[in-house]
């Protein structure tokens, strides 16, 4: 450690004239019914040590048997990332830790199932995928008693429910150049995992975990700098903060004429900084060797073909479809705001709603805006929305039966409880004001305020707001402000 290590925060590395170089290792839990090598349930949140058997507890004499579904999901991920899907084998990664039932992890090493792919970011940049391999998860340790930190704990509790849960580790090339780009990569990867039904991509539950390899260099330099690996990035926010901190730290070191030491570092979310865990010299020698209890995986071509044929459209393709819809709406290209909306909608796998609405004749821009801004805020609920009901809501808004504000209120209710939008609108008293009632409400207001009406007719436009307020009051807010303004303009003309 160097003295400057603990001073925080650092100014951004870019400010010092450094370019961050980032590669990410993403672990995702596969959505299988059972674990990778035994028949135990793969479930989150069950009572500790209830989903266990001789194999996932590593009892003497137990043996692993590979879960074919996990292989299939790994192939799906590989194909979605344009990887070369190959015959592969498992290795043992040996190290002692109480959460490792066998004190080795069964993982893929130099012959992984997926290699040499790429992921296309929403902005079109390509990130190389070096590999995406299968491995088993470990148990979960909790340090109990003492001061709550590892070295102060009185004892350790271990839950072996997660031990043996199938993971795919996706390793990117060192192709990312900013924290924002790293964020976009993880978001895109998550969309792909969700789209392929391979993982639920929930970072907060740990079903998707990210380690970041970060180094910095002068722009234009061809050599990579010395990197540090940052662990414990549990959210996109942590990912961005940790990368920015780390790149800044390394830039400051180099500026001070010091060098970066290759280390594994831990992200301390509360303190907002990375802390050294171990250096390269202290790194484990995992003594990898081929797992003798398993046979090579050689998926037959027919199976691979079936898996490839069952892949749904990927996010990049789906973004393209939404762009096409917006352009078809009369705009030559999607605006920057719409590009953001498209990215959001696809990231949350809500593009189906937009497409359905557009096919039903709703202007795509409206469907896109409502889906990106409101539905995405409750994405999980939105994914189970009744498509027809959602389209009906958008139609009510488009037809002027509901104001934008009212439509958002109704949507909020639909996301929370479901239900028919027309009925929800009625419950809220959002029944559309018939055009003649609006006209008569306006006429009444004008009759009550002849002086103001004269001034408005004389060109005092700001009185429109005065009249609108009164009409709103008279109609208990059911009138559409735009419709009132239109009626006033009509009467004046």
């Amino acid at each position, binding site marked *: 450690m160097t003295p400057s290590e603990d001073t925080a925060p650092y100014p951004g590395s870019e400010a010092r004239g450094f370019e961050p170089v980032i590669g990410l290792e993403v672990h995702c839990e596969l959505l299988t019914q059972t674990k990778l090598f035994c028949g135990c349930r793969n479930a989150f949140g069950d009572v500790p040590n209830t989903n266990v058997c*001789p194999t996932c507890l590593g*009892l003497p004499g*137990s043996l*692993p048997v*590979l879960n074919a579904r996990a292989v299939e999901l790994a192939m799906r991920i590989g194909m979605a990332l344009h990887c070369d899907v190959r015959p592969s084998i498992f290795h043992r990664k040996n190290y*002692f*830790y109480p959460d490792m039932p066998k*004190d080795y992890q069964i993982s893929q090493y130099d012959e992984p199932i997926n290699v040499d792919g790429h992921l296309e970011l929403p902005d079109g940049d390509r990130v190389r995928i070096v590999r995406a391999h299968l491995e088993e998860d470990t148990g979960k340790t909790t340090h109990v008693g003492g001061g709550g930190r590892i*070295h102060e704990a009185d004892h350790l509790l271990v839950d072996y429910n997660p031990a043996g849960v199938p993971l795919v580790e996706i390793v990117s090339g060192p192709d990312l150049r900013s924290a924002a780009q790293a964020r976009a990569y993880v978001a895109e990867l998550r969309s792909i995992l969700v789209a392929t039904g391979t993982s639920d991509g929930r970072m907060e539950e740990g079903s998707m975990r990210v380690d970041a390899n970060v180094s910095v260099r002068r722009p234009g330099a061809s050599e990579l700098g010395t990197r540090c690996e940052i662990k414990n990035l549990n959210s996109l926010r942590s990912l961005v903060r940790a990368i920015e901190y780390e790149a800044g730290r390394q830039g400051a070191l180099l500026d001070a004429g010091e060098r970066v030491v290759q280390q594994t570092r831990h992200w301390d979310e509360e303190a907002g900084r990375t802390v050294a865990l171990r250096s390269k010299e202290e790194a484990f020698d995992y*003594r990898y060797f081929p797992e003798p209890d398993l046979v090579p995986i050689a998926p037959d071509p027919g199976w691979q073909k079936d898996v490839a044929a069952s892949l749904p459209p990927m996010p990049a393709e789906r973004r393209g479809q939404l762009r096409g819809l917006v352009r078809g709406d009369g705009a030559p290209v999607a605006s920057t705001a719409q590009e953001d909306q498209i990215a959001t909608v696809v990231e949350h796998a809500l593009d189906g709603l937009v497409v359905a609405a557009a096919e039903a004749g709703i202007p795509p821009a409206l469907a896109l805006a409502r889906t990106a801004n409101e539905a995405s805020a409750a994405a999980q609920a939105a994914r189970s929305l009744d498509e027809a009901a959602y389209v009906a809501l958008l139609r009510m808004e488009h037809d002027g039966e509901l104001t934008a504000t009212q439509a958002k209120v109704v949507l909020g209710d639909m996301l929370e409880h479901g239900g028919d939008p027309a009925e929800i609108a009625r419950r809220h008293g959002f029944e559309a004001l018939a055009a003649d009632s609006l006209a008569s409400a306006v006429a009444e207001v004008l009759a009550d305020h002849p002086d103001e009406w004269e001034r408005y007719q004389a060109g005092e436009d700001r009185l429109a707001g005065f009249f609108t307020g009164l009409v709103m009051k008279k109609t208990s807010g059911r009138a559409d402000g735009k419709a009132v303004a239109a009626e006033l303009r009509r009467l004046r003309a």
Partner: protein
Amino acid sequence: MSPADPSDSHQPTTAPAAALAALVRAGETSARDAVARHLDAIARLDGELHAFVTVLPEQALAAADEIDRRVAAGEDPGPLAGVPVAVKDNMCTRGVATTCSSRILEHWRPPYDATVIERLAAAGAIVVGKTNLDEFAMGSSTENSAFGPTRNPYDPSRVPGGSSGGSAAAVAAGLAPLALGSDTGGSIRQPAALCGVVGMKPTYGTVSRYGLVAFASSLDQIGPFARSVADAAVLFDVIGGRDPMDSTCLDRPLPRTTSAVGDGVEGCRIGVVRELVEGADPAVASAVAEAAQALARAGAVVEECSVPEVRHGLPAYYLLAPAEASSNLARYDGVRYGLRVDAPDAESMNAATRASGFGPEVKRRIMLGTYALSAGYYDAYYGQAQKVRTLIIQAFARAYEQADALLGATTPTTAFAIGDKVQDPWAMYLSDVFSVPSNLAGDPAMSVPFGADAAGLPIGVQVLAPALGEAMVVRVAAALEAAAPRLDAPGIADLPLLGATGEQR
């Protein structure tokens, strides 16, 4: 002498275990009586032999009663109905201590049965006890047991061989007509030879390893001990066959051997492997030569041959097996089961537990294997040893272009004295020099008794065949058994049990 004339044969092929099962199935004798007599012999003789770590009188008698009840009800409990079987104590038995003769597992009771245990039960066999072994099957004398050595029934001052010494001694002394052992580098065949019984290491992948506590996963294989080739064949046929719990099980029809025992060797091409005899004691070498002649007399085409690559087997084995063992034995860390020696933190608890729970030979192999797999040494040691393994596989394949089976010695010497080699690991490792190549190749091999040395200690000769060639192995072994010189019964044995099962010695 012609083997076609049974009167010329010193030891007609018999199958005492199968014969006992036949009597039980016919209701002519009870399983309870058979089991009780063997338990009684164990009670009388095992104090001196120490073949067993755990004896299971109540469980065995209850199982026997169940067999008798089923026979009385007109059911057929299976081909080994009522036959007592001794099981090496590295195979999991539900609720019954499975120690691997190690302090670290001394009190561990598995919650599940090994697949072979289930198959024994399905065939009507009765487990009478768990037998002693070199700790975690690492050794060639059973002296590495944390619970004390097993003695050779022919001479209690000598070792029974190992690591399945307890199983070999139990069968030789009549304490059980059948036993299971595991063979990683010779751990069935070597003690079989030293105790004067039949022992077979089957083709890798023919017998499920599920529930066998792993030593070296790519080499370990469970196999039978018996007092005759025919019985060994029956036991192999019972325990073999694909098991979905073991991914390395071969997905091919199991070679059925029982029916091949009497097929003879007329016209079989037998190669006597020079390298599997060289360096052996003169008595052992001449036994192999006599065995070869006996096969020729029985109609086989016998030729000397050379498989020079097998000379590299032992060094390769002593890198590969410890490498796998160093990983397989990592799980004994005091966290989940077995011995725990408490310490202030997890890491020191691991270290204290392992320091106290493992014996010196196990520690030596863990160190050796850890080193062989270490960064920077992997290619030179583990990688190189794997290449040697491939060369040996290819060399055997070439030899089998000219021969249906191969013949050699099982061990270089007969039983050595307890204490003789414990201080010299390399001398001990040399006991496996003739047996290790079959494990590296994954091929089947059987040791069959063939006479004795001047001191009356049994000599074993080894029959090897290509993968899934068990039927050929038993044909050749049965021919040798029929022609073998008479072997006296051991000094420590239940003679009525040896004889009562219809066996001549």
